[in-house]
Structures are given as C-alpha cells and as structure tokens.
C-alpha cells in the first residue's frame, strides 16, 4: 500500500508501442489477417431488416423526415435583374460594426471608406450586388433594419459574450420573416489563453445554435491588424456572403419596398424661406425590392407616416452589374460602389442630371487653374485646353466607372418621367419664375444656412433651376456639400442631358463633364433653355411649337447604336441633335402607343396620365374621360357609338350586362348566313376552327403596326408606314401571307421546344431559386404533389415572362408597374419638416408600399404570446408599441381567450406561458402577418425589450370580447314563489332588457326575471304622490326564497376595445431622444406618486359564521293527541321542575331492601368480571397483532427475493433470445 501511494505521486511512463521487432510483426500480421477475414465474412445482407415492425418504423421515419423538409413553394414574382441584397450589420455598440463594413468595402472595392453612413451599394461579383447597412442601436432602428435585411450579420463581442441586442434583433427578425443570419465573433484577440478562447467559442456557438438552428454559421474574426480585420478572414467572410442564397419572404414578396440610399429635399426654397417649418417635398432614391410598384400605390415611410406618391421615376442604375462579356470574375474597374449618404458615390444620378464629385486630392491641377476654372465659366475655353484639363482630372476608377455605367439622361422610361415632371412643373411654375430672376443670391445664402445639413440644395438647384449661371451653381454646391471636408472643396460637375445631344454619344459626355468641361456646357446652355421652355410649353399646349416638332419628326431617323431595349429610345433621341427632344419623345411615345389603339378607345389617354401622378385628385376621373376622348380621336375602323354614348355625360345610365338587341338580328335561316359560322361548330371544318386560335399569336404582332393616331396638338397625322405600304398593292399581301406562314411554323417549333425545355429544365431552375440544390434531386421522383405544385408555379412564371416580354416598355410599365431591381426616384409631397431637420444618414429610411386594404384602420385579432424573457405579464389596455408590416404604432390591446363554446372572454392579464388573443385597433395588416410588441423604447434598459410576439388572425370590425358580470340584488318582498328584487337594476328599462334572464340565490334556488314590478304590488312609493322606485324586478323562483337570501344574475357584457392608435414618429424627432407616447397606468401612478387603489371588499378575511339557531318545533296539543304513537314526539324535554312522581320519596320493605341489595351485589360482581375479561382480551389482541406484523415482514422479504429471482430469470432469457435473433 505504501509503495502504491508513493508511486501515485510520480507520472507514469507512457506506453510505447513497438515499431519493429517480432512483436511489431506479430501485430501487423494480426491486423492484416483481421482485415482479410472481415472482407471475407462481409455479409451484404447483414444490415438488412430482419424485423418487419422495425422496417416499417424506419421507413415511416424516413418519410416523415422527408416531409418535414418540404416547404410550400413560394412564388418568386421578381423577373429580371435582382436588386442588391441588403446586408445588415447589427450588434451592440462598440463591437466593430462600422469597421466590418469598412473592411468589407475595402475588400470588394479597394477603397477606404472614411465613415459608414447610410447604405453602401457595391458590386461584389458578376451577378451580385450587395448593399451594406449598419443597423442603428436603438430598437426602432433595429425593427426597421429587420424589415429590409436579406442577410443579417450579427456581430458579437467574443470577449464579452452575447448581449441583449443580439437576441432582441434575432427575435425581431423571426417575427418579420426570418432572413438569413450569420453570426460574427469579434474581439477574440482579448483572449490570451488559447484554451479559454476555444471554450468560449464553443460555448457561444452552441448558444447561438439554440437560438437559430443547429449548425448555424458563426464566423470568427480574430483580432485586428493595423486597425482592420485580417485580410484572409474578411476574404472568407466575403466568400460566405457571396454564396449565400436568399429565400423569398412572404411579406416582402407581396409588398414593394425601397431602402432609401439617397434622400433629398426638393421644396422650393422660397417656401422654406418664408416658413422654415413648412411641409416639405422630398425625393427618395433606392432600389425597388419585393414586388412591382404601381404608380398609384401608397407608401409608408417608417417612422414618418403614410403618403401618396407624387411621382415615381425609374432612373438608370447608379451601380450596375458588370456587362455580360465573358470573363472570369469582375475586373477591378468594374467593382463599383455607390454610397451617396456616405458622400462617396462619385456619381449622383438625378431624374434629369448627373453629378460627379471628385475628392480634392484627386484633382491634380494647380490652384490657379482651379480658380480660373470656376471664374471663367462664362468664357469659352478652347478645345485643347479643355481636353488637357479633362485628362488631368481623369482618375482611373472614375473614368472606368463612367464608361461602364449607363448615364441615362432620360430615365429608362421616358414616358413616366416626363409625365411626372410635367405634373411637377405645373405646380412649380410660379416659383420658378421668381427663381430665375435672382438665383445667385438665393443659392449662396442657402448654402451658408444649410451647411450643416446634407446636400439638399444641390439637388434642388439641379432639379429646378434653369437659368442659373453655372458658376453660381458650382459655388453653392461646393459650399453645401457634406460637412466633414469643407476644405476639400468638392467639385460638382453638372451635366445636363442636353450636352449629350450636342455630341451624339452621351456616355463620353458625362466623363468630360467633371467640372472642367463647362465650356461645352455653356455652349449648349441656350439650347437647354430653349428646350426647357419647350417642355413647359408642351403643357400649355402651345401652338407655336408645332413647326419644331415637325422638324423633330423628320430628323427622328438616325440611330447609331443600341444597348438594349431600354436604350433604343434614347439613342434615337441622341440622333436628333439639338432640336426639341420633348416633342420628339412625345411623338415617339405616341407612335409606341399605336399598338394599343383599342386601349385608348377603352381607357382614353387618361390611362397613362392618371397613373403616373398619384397625387391627382381622384374625383376628376369623370372629367378626364370626357376630356381625353376629345383629345384623341380614334380613326379606327370600329366606331363605337355605344362608348361615346356612355362618355357623352350620361352618368346615370342603367347598368345592365346584357346588351343584345333583338331588332338587329340577322336572319339565321338563310343559308349563307348560317353557313358563315359553320366552322365554329364541330360539324364544320375543324382545321379552320383550329386555325382561329393559332392565328392569334402571329396576328397580334402585326396588329401592333396598323392603327394610327392624330396629334391634335400639332395637327398632323401619324400614320403607320405599313398602312401606307399596304395600299401599294397586292404584292405586299402575298408577302404577308408567306411571312405569316413562316411565323406560324416558327411558333410551332418554339412551342415544341419550350415544352421540351420546360420539362427538363424547370426542376433545375427551381433548385437554384428555392432549394439548397442537394435535396431536390432525391425527392424529385417521390413527392408528386410537391413537384406538381412547383411545376405549376414555374409554368405560371414562364407564362408571365413570355406575356410580358411581348409588350413594349411603356405598356409594360403601365400594366405591371415598376419592376423590382429598378433604381427609383420617389417624390413625396407634404412631408413634415422634422423629417428633413432630424434626418440622420445612420438611420436608413425604409419606404414600404401599402397593399390592398392596408391603409384602412380597424380591429385586428392577433394570437399573442408574452415573450418568456419579459419579466411581467401584460395588462389589458396598457399601451404597447407594435410593429406590423412596415408600420410601428402604439395601441391599446385587450387580451382575451377563447372559451370552449367559442366565446372570447376578456383577460385582465396575459397568461404566463400560453398564447392568448389580443385585439387592438390600428391600420390593418393581412392575416398571418407577424406582430412584434415592445413597451419601452429607451436604450438604457437592461431588460429584454421585446414583450410579446403575435400574428394576425383576422380583422374584426365588431370587437366581440366579453367579460363576466354579476348583478346582485336583494329581495324586498317575498310572495309564495315570487319575490321582488331590488338593487339589481337601476331602471325599469334595464329590467326590460333582462326579462327572462336566469337568476339564482346564494342557496342555489334558481329563478327567472319576469318584469319590472308594478306599482300596485308591494312597490308603493314611500310617500303618496312620490315616484315609485325604479328598477325593482319581479322574479319567480323554483322555491320560496328568504329575505336573507342574496339574488344574483350572471351575464356577459361586451368589452370595448379602445379605438386608439398612435403611429411612431421616430424619424420626426432627434434620434437620441426616446419617443414618448401614451403611458401605462403603472407609469402614471409612479409619476404622480399614486398608490394602487384597493377595494376593501376584495380582501380575503376569515369567514365568521354565527351558529344558526332554530326555534323548537311546536306541535299543537290537539294534533299531538291525534298522532299515532310512532309519530308522537318522544324526546320529551327535560323539565325544570321534576314531576310529582319523581319528587315522591320511596320507602322499601325490609325484604325488598334485601333483594335490592343482592341485585346490586350481583351486578357489581358481573361488572368486575367483565372488566377483567376485557383487559385480557386487549392483551391477547396485541400479541396477535405483533405476531402478524412479524410474519408480514418475513413474507414480504421472501416475496421480494422471489420476484428478483424471477426478473433475473426473465432478463436472462430475453438476452438469450436477443442474442439468438441477432445471431
């Protein structure tokens, strides 16, 4: 023992296995042999199922697993180019969010980002763009960020561990559709101990997994190198981001939304000067996401409110994907980025202008030159000088970017933009004139005032001023532009679109327009002005412009290049030179419209205008129709009298879907008449009938061409060429036939190919879109319904694409609205000035489209569960802040629970661990929308801020929540089984309301309310002539009640849900301020130092019950006498004074006395005997009991042993059997 203990102290020598020698050989031999034998004995059937039940179980499990993997396929209705994916970087303060964005941007673009403000769009690959957004640290910002995030990077301080913000954000994400999430651990360099680091990583990872799913990616960023994250790790992170797939989320696919990456105030400056707190007009820029946006859609700006769109314009993409040329990966030069809020985009695209800003240190010419550049604006510089200047300023990336990017001076869809602008201009006409008179002063002063603000004025000036001298422009812009680098006077080149026309190719133009090449600009200035005037005149239907437009028409022929469908239009305009392009575009538009001739007939021209400007008053639809019909006189072959009749002002025509007139019928008995439709019957020629349908495709395309219109403005007629040609002769016709035949054949071939292609290709496409790819192939064959569903969706998608492709761009815009992925400029009017004043680029603005019926307010029923981390239960009617859809608002819910019979019973507080219903009033959201509830918005709160999560069940206008009510009354007069009950009701009317209601006394006697008590019976006024007391009810009971009984009526009463909602206007106040809304009762009490009111009756007190005293039963003597003996009362009460017989003394005889004594003796003896026997018996019983207990114990012991033995036996047997089976 002693030796052992001594050895314990030493470390054992590790075992060293033999590597050579005999024993080593032996071992290897054995090993080899073992392997060989294994291979020989391998039984392919060894792992097959032996047991039927087991096989079945496993099979069903496999099927179940498969089914669990399936999700209802979601239709992705975004066709075309995808908008950049939004990567939200979220985390508690000081965890390295900005640094991560900076390093990622650096990784992608090789640019240093000075500071992160607002969304930063970058091109990350050939097919992919990303938009990085830093999530603000307050709960409102987090909620908004969760609504637009495609990927959330949750930054976690590894040295500190998880913080509440992370979990809060995860919860918010979950409620608003769960986008992709990736955790990123930072601050790992604080660990000195490797083991500890490893442990912490492990711990955090597992905690992260429980929150999301097992295997969720948690990324580690180990420390900083030169103040940046290590390159390799950032590279890896970027790789992870680049391969990520983003599943469509249901709310987002059904609502358009825009993450605003540029925001500008376009209020006329006079208005602001007059009243700095006037409502502003703002423009919001961003990529359209979610689904298509129609022009009439209302929008919600998160934290501001609902607005209707004053104008929507599609702009050219400021950060386009690299061209489709085949090469490996994007070249560095194509790695664009765009972050106007961070002041880094270099290029700002507006509706009608492009701004280029170049950092001072990139401008390499001398200061003198610069001065000259700005001052000599007016003078014409010679070409060579300009060229040199431009060459000096060329910075490689910018140059390349410009070359790459499409600078469209017209927006992609000229139609809408022009029209939108027209509308704006209409309204702005008057202010503009004033501006023209003294523009310089104004802008300078503006610049000084708003230096602290962002570059609002620059946009203003660009948008609206026309006659402002260029130098003034520059100056003002230089001054206004972003705070930080005031000395680094940023230069803004202002390139008007007209410049483009001057030179033919617009792209080139934009490169030169970088603040040096103003000479060119200047030269075209007059034309610009002319054009602008022209534009204005357009609206006024100025007849004087007609000649010019004619010219346009003629010159509108040459187009040299085309970059795709969208550019076609522009290119043509380019060719025109310096003639009025507005007119031209109008003509062009008109010519495009030829194919929707019938559309004009139906919709009138108003079709296009009414939708462009959403702010138009709706009630003028009537006028429009009539107006436009005069405007465009269709020359079509179908003169529809009936339509004109309807338009002609008879607004009260009877609506009647039947429109047949018996009088105009053909005589169908005539042979030629009925033979004419012979082919429409199965008895006719089938081939001809079939042709009817096939012709469709081919024909419609041609139809587009014929049809002509007349521009009343210019008085000229535009007739399609084809029509003219067709008049040339029959040759054309024959040609047409041939062409048609060919086309038909082609179509048939295409259809055949399509069918083939769809069948084979679609599953693979789907996998790309929806699944992780690897699942799909395995289940393609077995899950039939699922596949069918997916196929249907895919088919629908293909049909949609095919049908929409057919349409030209203008019509398409009208039909389907702006497509997702487009860069849009939204104009919104009458926004509170606070939005401008308190705008903070670090808080991204979310603009969400409002769906069908979502602008209405009403009651919503939600299924709500208190969050398990929130410490308290929630109280009915305490205000909470909910986030539903795009909105956040404060509302007062009433909680309820559904009883077994479907009744919704009010709850005073939410259940602790259960779902309940919450009904509240507010803007409606469609069923199944997630709801998130918060009570406290402040940041300095340690506890978990999310108090509950819910989802919308239904809308309910009539809120049907009830609570129990107990009406208590007391009898005031009792008849036999009828009683008058007072204090239960306050008026006879109330009694009438409750007639027939069931009532009950405390003792359980049931009854019914009959009627209000009449005056005669027992309800007399106390004094004659006084009014009878109201509210006394006559009730009947099943038995007579007592005066001491309490009668109560149990009923249900409706609970009102307060009609209160208060939208959160967090964007209209300084960001650091907490939003103040309605306070809870508890908060108010705390503030006013009020105690909680208590109802004394509600206290529990010890119940004191007096013993009930009953009077003795008195049976009249006469009755008693008649009773039979049995029924006679026998327990005659004890008399106070004994009866005479008892009082009498008894004197015994001597003999009698003897007998009496003897009897007494005998009794004594017997008593004694009995006592002894009893004692003996007692003892005996005890003995027996003891004995029995002993026996019992022994028996139990034996039994247990027996049992053990038996079980052992059984177990052995089982084992044996199992072994047998396995063998």
């Amino acid at each position, binding site marked *: 023992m002693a030796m052992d203990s001594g050895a314990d102290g030493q470390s054992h020598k590790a075992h060293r296995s033999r590597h050579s020698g005999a024993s080593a050989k032996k071992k290897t031999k054995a090993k080899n042999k073992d392997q060989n034998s294994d291979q020989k004995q391998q039984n392919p059937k060894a792992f097959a199922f032996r047991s039927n039940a087991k096989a079945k179980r496993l099979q069903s499990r496999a099927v179940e697993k498969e089914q669990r993997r399936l999700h209802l396929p979601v239709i992705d209705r975004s066709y075309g180019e995808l908008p950049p994916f939004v990567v939200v970087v979220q985390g508690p303060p000081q965890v390295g969010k900005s640094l991560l964005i900076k390093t990622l941007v650096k990784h992608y673009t090789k640019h240093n980002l000075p500071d992160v403000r607002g969304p930063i769009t970058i091109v990350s690959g050939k097919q992919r763009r990303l938009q990085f957004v830093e999530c603000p640290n307050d709960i409102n910002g987090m909620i908004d960020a969760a609504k637009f995030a495609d990927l959330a990077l949750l930054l976690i301080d590894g040295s500190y561990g998880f913080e509440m913000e992370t979990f809060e954000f995860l919860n918010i994400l979950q409620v608003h559709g769960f986008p992709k999430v990736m955790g990123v651990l930072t601050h790992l360099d604080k660990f000195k101990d490797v083991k500890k680091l490893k442990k912490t990583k492990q711990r955090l990872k597992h905690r992260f997994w429980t929150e999301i799913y097992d295997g969720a990616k948690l990324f580690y960023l180990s420390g900083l190198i030169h103040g940046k994250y290590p390159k390799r790790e950032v590279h890896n992170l970027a790789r992870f981001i680049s391969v990520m797939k983003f599943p469509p989320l249901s709310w987002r696919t059904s609502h358009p939304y825009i993450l605003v990456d540029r925001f500008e105030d376009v209020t006329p400056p006079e208005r602001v000067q007059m009243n700095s707190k006037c409502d502003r007009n703002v423009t919001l820029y961003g990529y359209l996401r979610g689904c298509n946006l129609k022009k009439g859609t209302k929008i919600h700006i998160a934290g501001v409110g609902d607005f209707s769109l004053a104008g929507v314009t599609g702009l050219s993409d400021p950060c386009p994907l690299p061209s489709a040329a085949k090469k490996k990966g994007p070249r560095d030069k194509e790695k664009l980025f765009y972050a106007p809020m961070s002041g880094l985009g270099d290029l700002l695209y507006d509706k009608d202008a492009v701004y280029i800003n170049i950092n001072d240190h990139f401008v390499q010419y001398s200061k003198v030159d610069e001065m000259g550049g700005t001052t000599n604006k007016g003078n014409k510089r010679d070409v060579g000088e300009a060229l040199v200047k431009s060459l000096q300023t060329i910075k490689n990336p910018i140059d390349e970017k410009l070359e790459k990017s499409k600078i469209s001076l017209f927006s992609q869809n000229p139609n809408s933009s022009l029209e939108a602008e027209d509308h704006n201009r209409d309204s702005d006409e008057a202010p503009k004139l004033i501006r023209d008179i003294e523009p310089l002063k104004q802008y300078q002063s503006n610049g000084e005032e708003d230096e602290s603000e962002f570059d609002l004025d620059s946009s203003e000036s660009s948008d609206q001023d026309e006659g402002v001298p260029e130098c003034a422009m520059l100056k003002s812009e230089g001054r206004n532009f972003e705070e930080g680098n005031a000395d680094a006077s940023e230069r803004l080149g202002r390139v008007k679109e007209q410049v483009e026309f001057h030179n033919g190719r617009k792209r080139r133009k934009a490169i030169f327009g970088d603040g040096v090449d103003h000479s060119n600009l200047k030269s075209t200035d007059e034309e610009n002005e002319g054009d602008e005037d022209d534009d204005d005149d357009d609206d006024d239907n100025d007849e004087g412009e007609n000649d010019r437009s004619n010219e346009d028409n003629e010159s509108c022929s040459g187009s040299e290049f085309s970059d795709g469908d969208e550019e076609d239009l522009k290119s043509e305009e380019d060719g025109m030179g310096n003639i009025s392009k507005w007119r031209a575009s109008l003509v062009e538009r008109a010519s495009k419209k030829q194919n929707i001739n019938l559309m004009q007939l139906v919709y009138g021209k108003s079709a296009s205008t009414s939708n462009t400007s959403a702010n138009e008053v709706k009630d003028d639809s009537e006028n429009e129709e009539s107006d436009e019909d005069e405007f465009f006189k269709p020359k079509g072959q179908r003169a529809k009298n009936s339509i004109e009749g309807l338009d002609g002002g008879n607004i009260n025509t009877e609506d009647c879907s039947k429109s047949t007139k018996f009088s105009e*019928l053909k005589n169908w008995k005539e042979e030629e008449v009925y033979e004419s439709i012979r082919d429409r019957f*199965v008895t006719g020629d089938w081939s001809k009938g079939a042709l009817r349908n096939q012709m469709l495709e081919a024909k419609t395309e041609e139809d587009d061409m014929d049809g002509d219109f007349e521009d009343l403005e210019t008085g000229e007629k535009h007739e399609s060429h084809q029509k003219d040609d067709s008049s040339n002769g029959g040759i054309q016709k024959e040609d047409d036939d041939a062409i048609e035949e060919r086309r038909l054949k082609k179509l048939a071939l295409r259809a055949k190919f399509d069918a083939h292609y769809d069948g084979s290709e679609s599953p693979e496409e789907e996998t790309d879109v929806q699944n992780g790819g690897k699942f799909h192939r395995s289940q393609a064959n077995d899950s039939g319904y699922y596949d069918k569903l997916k196929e249907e969706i895919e088919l629908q998608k293909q049909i949609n694409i095919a049908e929409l492709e057919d349409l030209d761009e203008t019509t398409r815009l009208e039909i389907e609205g702006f497509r997702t992925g487009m860069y849009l400029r939204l104009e919104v009017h009458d926004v509170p000035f606070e939005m401008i004043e308190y705008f903070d680029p670090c808080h991204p603005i979310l603009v969400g489209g409002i769906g069908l019926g979502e602008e209405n307010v009403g009651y919503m029923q939600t299924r709500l569960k208190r969050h398990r981390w929130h410490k308290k239960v929630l109280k009915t009617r305490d205000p909470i802040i909910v986030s539903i859809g795009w909105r956040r608002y404060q509302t007062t819910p009433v909680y309820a629970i559904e009883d077994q019979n479907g009744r919704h019973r009010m709850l005073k507080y939410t259940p602790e661990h259960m779902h309940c219903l919450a009904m509240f009033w507010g803007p409606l959201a469609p069923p199944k929308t997630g709801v998130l509830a918060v009570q406290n918005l402040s940041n300095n709160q340690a506890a978990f801020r999310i108090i509950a999560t819910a989802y919308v069940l239904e809308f309910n206008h009539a809120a049907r929540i009830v609570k129990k009510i107990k009406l208590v009354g007391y009898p005031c007069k009792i008849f036999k089984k009828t009683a008058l009950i007072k204090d239960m009701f306050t008026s006879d009317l109330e009694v009438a309301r409750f007639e027939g209601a069931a009532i009950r006394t405390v003792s359980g006697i049931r009854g019914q309310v009959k009627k209000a008590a009449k005056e005669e019976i027992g309800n007399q006024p106390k004094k004659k002539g006084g009014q009878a007391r109201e509210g006394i009810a006559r009730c009947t009971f099943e038995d007579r009640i007592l005066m001491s009984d309490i009668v109560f009526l149990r009923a249900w009463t409706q609970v009102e849900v307060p009609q209160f909602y208060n939208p959160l206007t967090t964007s209209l106040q300084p960001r650091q301020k907490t939003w103040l809304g309605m306070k809870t009762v508890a908060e108010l009490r705390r503030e006013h130092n009020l105690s909680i009111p208590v109802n004394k009756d509600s206290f529990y007190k010890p119940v004191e019950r007096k013993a009930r005293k009953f009077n003795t039963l008195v049976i009249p003597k006469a009755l008693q006498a008649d009773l039979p003996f049995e029924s006679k009362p026998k327990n005659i009460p004890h008399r106070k004074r004994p009866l005479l017989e008892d009082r009498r003394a008894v004197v015994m005889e001597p003999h009698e006395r003897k007998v009496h004594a003897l009897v007494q003796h005998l009794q004594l003896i017997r008593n004694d005997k009995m006592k002894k026997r009893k004692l003996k018996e007692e003892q005996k019983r005890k003995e027996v009991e003891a004995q029995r207990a002993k026996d019992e114990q022994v028996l139990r012991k034996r039994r247990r042993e027996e049992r053990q033995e038996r079980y052992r036996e059984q177990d052995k047997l089982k084992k044996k059997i199992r072994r047998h089976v396995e063998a």
Partner: protein
Amino acid sequence: MGKITYKRLKGSQNMRQRLLLATLKSTPVLIEDIHAGDTLPGLRPHEISLLRLFEKLTDDCLIEINETGTKLKYKPGIIVGGSHLVHDCGFSRAIGYFLEPLILLGLFARKTLVIILKGITNDSKDPSVDTFRSTTFPLLRHFGVPSEGLKLEIKSRGVSPHGGGEVHLTIPTVQHLTATMWTDEGMVKRIRGEAFTTRVSVQLGNEMIYAARGIFNRLLPDVYIASDYRKRLEAGNSPGYGISLVAETTSGCCISADTTVSYPRGDEEEDIEDEGKKELIPAADVGEELASVLLEEIEKGGVVDSTHQGLLFLLCALCPKDVSKVRVGKLSPYGIETLREIRDFLDVQFVIKPDPSTGTVILKCWGSGMKNLSRKTT
C-alpha cells in the same frame, strides 16, 4: 379616428361594379348626382336593395344617403357572408342584377355564403338564373373556384311585374383566384337550354323549344332544350315564359343567351291593368329570336358571351399578380365600363389587342394580387 378620404364618383352608372370594387378593395366612395336631373331623383329601388344586400353581407359598413337620394356615401366593411341570409330583391330588377356582384363578393367572404334571394328570377334585362347556373359557374371554374361549393337552386320562378321567385345560392370562399390563359374558344359541340313557363300554357314552352331547335338543327345535331313548366306556388305571381340557351364548346367555354317574355312593370298601379291587355310576343318568335341571338354570340367569338365580359374582366383583375389572358368577342359597352372601373379602383389596366382575322379581342392583364383578407387563419 383618422379622417376618411372618400373616392368621389358621379352618377349611378356602374353602381354594381363600383360598390363591388369599393368593397373588395375597401375604398370608401362618395357618389354624387345620382339621377339628379330626373323627375324622380335619387336612388332607384333596386339600387337601394343592392345597398341593403351589401350591408347584409358585410360587417361594419356605413351607408349614408342624403334626403333626396342623390348622394351616397359608402364606407365598406369586411365581407362576412354567412348562411341563413334572406334578401328580397324587389321587383324593379331581376335577381340576375344582384347575382353578378354577389358571386364575387361571396368568393372573398369570410364564411361560405348561403343566401335566399327573392324576386324576379327571369327577365329580359338581366341574365336569368338559368344562365348563372349553366354559364357563369363553369366560368368561375377557370379561375380556380371549386365547382362543388357553387350551387344555385331555383325554388320557384317569378317574372315581372309581380315576381315571386326564389333561389337558393351557395358560394364557397377562396383564398385567392388563379390566373388563367383562356384564349382557346374551341368549337361548339353541343347546345343545351331550358325553357320555362309560369302561369301560362305549357304549349308555349314547347313552341319555343321547337322554334329554337329548328334553327340549330341545320348546324348541329346535339341540341337538347329542357322544359321547366312551373305550376302553382312554384310559378310565382305573374304569367310569363322564356328560354335560355347555352352553347358549349370543345374547350369548355359556355356561350349563353336568354330572354323572358312577360308583362312589363308599370310605374303606377293602374297601368298594369291596361298593359295586361297588351299582347306578348308569340312563343315561336321568341324561340327563333333567341336562337339567332345565340348564333350571333357564337359568331362574335370569344370565350364568353357579351353578357359575361364584365364578370370575366373582374375575375382577371382580381387574380394574383400573374398574367391572365382572355379572348372575347366585340367588347360590349358593359365590358368597357367594367374595364374603366377596374382601372379606377384596382389600378389594373388591360392590354387590349384586336384580332382582326377573327374579329375578336385579346385582353391581357396583370392581376391586382387580391387575396381574401377576411378569411380567418387558424
């Protein structure tokens, strides 16, 4: 709480579509100048009845009419539907007038709609209830409405002036419709129909059938026209007769036509007596005429007849955000009006292309993405 902004409209035209679309999109509307210039200004009885019907089906809707009845304020509620509903349609318009909006309303209701409609079942102005059964319900099937739930029972027939008809209508609810590509009109393979008489000689019905068959027989052998001769209580309160015909095509389109002959409704009580003496159109002529009308509808082409164009467009516009494509014959005034109302309310425009070779029109639209919001989730 907030101020309600009403969409302002004028006149009583397209009242049905306006109210229907307003309800479906829950836009409050304000209609002014309703029959303002007429000698009897204000809403017509059938329009009031229609408003009543809407009120019955919806929850918390608000209808305000000024004293003269020329101004109507309508704030729609949530479409509830439900069973055990009874509505008296009155005698100024037939049940068909009410059925058209009712069908769409029922589809987007919270609960299955079961309603008893009383009034005039057949009349020459509105499509008859037979047409709804034979044509409209198959039409709905193209938009993903399950055909099992759709039911229309004619308990008794009633014609103008005194009506007395009763139909039981059941409409299931849908989550959303499905977009359709429905341009193949096919060829007419069979013609079915139903001739009815109420309180007149059965012989008249037979005459109609005979006359109609006479025209069709030259084109198609598969013609079967059922007879439905009502007696006593089932025959309503007024005498009349009529016929409705349906042509079914190989591609499942139904093209219908119907008419009814009865004594018109006079404005005053005495007039009825006078007009009662007026002779009705002979039954044989009615049959012949209606057969011609049907052939004319077939000649026009399209997947539906002119009566159903409005409904077809509405259905297309209410589809999810997918492309629907349909072919119709010459656009009927009602269809055009409907298109305009759809544009105004739902912001959905159709691409309308004529197909001159067949004289038909092809309409394409991008659905509004309508979903049944009132249905409860579980």
